[in-house]
């Protein structure tokens, strides 16, 4: 049976593995390490072992992996038939991966019957070698199950090596439905995607264990390898729109694949409530993010004043949403919104890994925190150590004075 193996001739009972384990999955008894029932096979103990006594034994299924090639990117259009920008971010990232694999990048674009055909051109100009599309009324509004049937059908016929999805609400429902039907692996909310130079495998890195550690995940024996990525994470990889030329799409680059006639939606949207006024922190150019270090909910108006003075949006960390200080749309991080502003001012934020994973796209980060050891300072470009409220108080006054003078 597959499992954690300890080489008894090597183990010296040093307990480094016990200290490295997040789950209590290994213990030392009689000077010998033994896995417990709580082991989740994360491999932390393997890295920690100084004498290489620990290994994970796996049974590898021998699938015919050579038949699989190309990287697919799922493209989602919104209710106004605009392509969501995460598709271009993924196309940009896919191009870099495809260069290493020596394969093509293919965009998957489900559309309604009336769609004009301008998306295909833009997708090709911004990184896709080919576009697989369908024009079908069953694709409007997008239904995860219907869409999954289409993607699975295509994947079984054309055998892609990798499929990437934006981790939108829809993508997070679609991707698992595809994974379970194709019986393959899926890694959610990746913050890094790389090709391993030796094995050619997709290395998918994401925050794990409640966002306290990063885990690199591979899917060695099944295909396609699949990952979802939050909007904004690869903002820097997207090809700019300006490079779109009007006659980019040759006819043979766009292929129509019909949806099986038997597919029917089992979910019907009766009405959509207008979204509440947009805390559009995902698109914000400037962002003020506050954490527990501001001390009290009473400080929020001051933080809002700072945001107003900078013409910035206000975001916060998960504990503040859980405490009810701000609503969920304001939450910045892996489990909230990934952001990529020009300027991010982080106030009283310690910097949990799941939070840091959501702000990696920010161009300039200014951190204000009284704890000089806070992890947020590890990624900040400018660091102000001191009483956050006092500094912000002065900062607001300076900024408001400057406005009054001009």
């Amino acid at each position, binding site marked *: 049976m597959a499992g954690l193996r300890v080489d008894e001739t090597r183990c010296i009972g040093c307990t480094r593995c016990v200290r490295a384990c997040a789950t209590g999955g290994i213990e030392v008894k009689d000077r010998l390490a033994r896995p417990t029932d709580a082991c989740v096979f994360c491999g932390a103990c393997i890295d920690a072992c100084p004498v290489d006594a620990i290994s994970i034994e796996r049974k590898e299924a021998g699938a015919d992996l050579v038949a699989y090639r190309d990287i697919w990117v799922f493209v989602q259009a919104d209710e106004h038939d605009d392509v969501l920008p995460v598709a271009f971010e993924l196309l940009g990232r896919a191009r870099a991966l495809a260069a290493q694999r020596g394969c093509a990048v293919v965009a998957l674009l489900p559309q309604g019957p009336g769609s004009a055909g301008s998306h295909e051109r833009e997708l090709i100009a911004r990184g896709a070698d080919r576009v697989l599309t369908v024009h079908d009324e069953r694709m409007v509004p997008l239904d995860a199950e219907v869409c999954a049937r289409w993607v699975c059908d295509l994947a079984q016929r054309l055998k892609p090596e990798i499929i990437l999805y934006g981790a939108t609400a829809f993508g997070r429902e679609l991707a698992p439905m595809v994974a379970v039907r194709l019986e393959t692996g899926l890694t959610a909310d990746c913050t890094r995607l790389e090709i391993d130079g030796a094995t050619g495998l997709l290395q998918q890195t994401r925050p794990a264990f409640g966002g306290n550690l990063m885990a690199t995940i591979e899917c060695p024996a099944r295909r396609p390898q699949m990952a979802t990525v939050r909007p904004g994470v690869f903002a820097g990889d997207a090809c700019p729109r300006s490079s779109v030329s009007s006659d980019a799409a040759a006819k043979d680059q766009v292929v129509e694949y019909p949806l099986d006639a038997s597919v029917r939606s089992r979910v019907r949207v009766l009405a959509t*409530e207008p979204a509440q006024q947009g805390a559009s922190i995902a698109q914000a150019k400037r962002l003020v993010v506050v954490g527990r270090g501001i001390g009290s909910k009473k400080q929020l108006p001051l933080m809002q004043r700072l945001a107003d003075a900078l013409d910035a949006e206000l975001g916060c960390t998960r504990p503040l949403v859980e405490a009810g200080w701000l609503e969920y749309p304001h939450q910045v991080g892996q489990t909230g919104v990934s952001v990529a502003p020009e*300027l991010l001012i982080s106030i009283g934020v310690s910097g949990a890994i799941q939070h840091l994973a959501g702000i990696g796209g920010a161009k300039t980060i200014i951190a204000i925190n009284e704890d000089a050891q806070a992890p947020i300072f590890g990624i900040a470009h400018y660091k102000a150590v001191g009483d956050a409220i006092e500094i912000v108080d002065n900062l607001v006054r300076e900024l408001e004075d400057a406005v009054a003078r001009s």
Partner: protein
Amino acid sequence: MHIVVCVKAVPASTEVKMDPVTNTIVRDGGDAVVNPFDASALELALRLREERRAAGEDVRVSVLSMGIPATERLLRDCIARGATDALLLSDRAFAGADTLATTHALTCGMCELGMPDLVLCGKMAVDGDTAQIGPELAGALDMACVADVRTLMACANDAVTVRAGGDAGVSLVEATLPCVLTVAKEAATLRMPSIAGVLAAEHATVDVRGAAEVGADAARIGLAGSPTQVVRSFVPEQQAAGVEVSGDAIGQARQLVRIIGEVA
């Protein structure tokens, strides 16, 4: 009507601190609890049963979990809060499961309990954050699926109506039964156990079954049945130090104004 609520035992605190000197995890114990999203799902099931009971129909609410033997305590607590029965899938062979292998195990558990009309689970687990189990279950069971349910509006014999979150905002959605619903935390708060419930739970049996007993395919569960593998886990390395903004609060504020003017 038969409802199965899938629950996961998660650490009471997901805040793991790192020891900055040894670079290892500082574990401060902490008991396991039912994943808060799953607790909301259970409450929705219990409310639905009360509604239908008032209309003269009997609804069975089963709780299903895959976990270590100690998870039995949590399932007993679910019975104390009103669940009809509970099944715990516990076996060394289930360990190390990713979402696909977990889905296969839960599907086997579902067959053991009897196929439900409605499957409720939390939108995601606080310790994994993948939000994949619900939609994968729907695919494996060939059921309709609605994710991120905020309110359960109505449930008839052949369809369920819910308010659910999506990319365009919150929508009113109707799905045909059988159906999998993944539930947002704010959908409901799980009730406290009643005294009668606690007494009943003491004598209730929580079914504990191994992989072979529920007919799970050994190649599709646990580590062996998981296509994804964690090859490395690590504390992210800190990048090069940024520019220090020092001085008193006023001095720091003035420097920050200048920096903001320069960068954006």
